[in-house]
């Protein structure tokens, strides 16, 4: 627990790793150096000092799987919450709009770590659900607020002539949203959602304070048994870095494709 308390960026959830794009040469090479360097370092350490490095690497894959489960589960749920929240934020229905805005305000004002504790234990009082699911819900409720803003911006970026054209053809607002606005907005929000995914992946390490055996928690387990704290956290940090860099690259490519299409 002591290690976690020092974790910074508890409420800082907005930023993923910088996305390398071709036009930004400096960042592109920085990405390469970091990615190749991280993999190389891991390989080097486990080859020359298999004890403890190789042992650590063998011990944590279960945790990587859990980290992915939390991240993917939370981003999917957060996307649904975010879409509803985004629609609420632009709705002319005052109740819907008010509820969405209140949700965003409240979530934004509470540190992520506090929310995770709170939702986890609050849920535990109401229903008996697996820890992993609680953790996913806790992350999703928090990220849903940020995703709501992403979706709101995405929807609002579609020229208003699109809604007018759809309505002048006799579509209801809902039909226009579904067939005309949202399909276009999804393209717009794909890169920012990708960024949220990376941010969430990093923040998912916070669930290690719950009884969820994610990457960080597996590392902690190994470290406290073997007393190889420095070595273990070196490996954990490098694995997070490799995963994060990999996805930021993927999102960069995706974004380039979308830009090329337009």
């Amino acid at each position, binding site marked *: 627990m002591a290690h976690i308390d020092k974790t910074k960026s508890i409420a800082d959830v907005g930023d993923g790793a910088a996305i390398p794009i071709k036009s930004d040469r400096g960042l592109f090479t920085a990405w390469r150096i970091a990615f190749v360097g991280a993999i190389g370092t891991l390989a080097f350490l486990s080859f020359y000092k298999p004890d403890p490095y190789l042992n650590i690497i063998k011990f944590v894959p279960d945790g990587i799987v859990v980290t992915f489960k939390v991240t993917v589960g939370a981003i999917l749920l957060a996307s649904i919450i975010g879409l509803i929240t985004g629609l609420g934020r632009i709705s002319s229905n005052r109740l819907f709009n008010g509820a969405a805005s209140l949700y965003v305000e409240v979530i934004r004002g509470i540190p992520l770590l506090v929310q995770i504790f709170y939702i986890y234990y609050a849920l535990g009082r109401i229903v008996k659900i697996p820890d992993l699911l609680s953790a996913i819900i806790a992350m999703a409720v928090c990220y849903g607020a940020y995703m709501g803003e992403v979706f709101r911006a995405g929807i609002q970026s579609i*020229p208003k*002539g*699109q809604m*007018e*054209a*759809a*309505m*002048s*053809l*006799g*579509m*209801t607002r809902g*039909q226009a949203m579904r*067939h*005309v606005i949202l*399909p*276009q907005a999804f*393209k717009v929000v794909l890169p920012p959602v990708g960024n949220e995914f990376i941010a969430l992946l990093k923040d998912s390490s916070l669930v290690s304070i719950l009884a969820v055996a994610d990457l960080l928690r597996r590392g902690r387990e190994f470290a406290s048994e073997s007393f190889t704290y420095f070595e273990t956290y070196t490996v954990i940090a490098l694995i997070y870095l490799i995963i994060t860099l990999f996805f930021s690259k993927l999102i960069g490519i995706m974004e380039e494709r979308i830009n090329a299409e*337009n």
Partner: protein
Amino acid sequence: MLKTERRVMVQARDIVKLYGRFKALDQVSLTIHEGEKIVIIGPSGSGKSTLLRSINRLEEIDAGTMIVNGMDLYNPKTDLTRVREEVGMVFQSFNLFPHKSVLENLTLAQIVVRKRSKDDALEKAKKLLAKVGLSDKANAYPGKLSGGQQQRVAIARSLAMDPKIMLFDEPTSALDPEMIGEVLDVMKDLANEGMTMAVVTHEMGFAREVADRVVFMDNGAVVEEGTPEHFFTNPDHPRAKQFLSQIL
């Protein structure tokens, strides 16, 4: 044929539209009969778009009554989408759906709103594309078309709903000069087929040739209304005279 015997398509009475304290429309009344083609002209900011857009309630009016195809737009019992499917609208900026192919642009509302089968919608779409001379672009995306082509697709998209009246808001103003003709030709064909049309335009040649009636607006009011002949040769209102002397 006596005009008074024809069905009334649009009955606008004493329309007032406010933006804050500014009166964009000031007690405007306008009647459009079935089959009639009216051209609305006037200086920029005179309220032409606002009037046109109030006919399908894209713009909410603050006072007056608007009856379209027998339905009162501000009667709470009126189903607005029912009104809108019968009122086609063509915008200056085309507003095609960029994520859908030309064919899909034409079929979407037929399927979603008119509840036609996909086959029926496709058949209708293809017929209309042929009519506007764009059969070869059926599978293209709007972004790949010229402005003139996009506007012809937009007209076809509206026509696919079998509208009773077509509204055009400066349909050629965003086009390069060499493309204006192809769009006006489609509109003239439509006029010859008897479509009821309300057209905001600066194309005076089109107004002369096609309009049954010219409506001249200034400062949110209709200040002169008459046959193109009368309007272009001998307008009564000084603002109309001044406008014509500037534009011709």
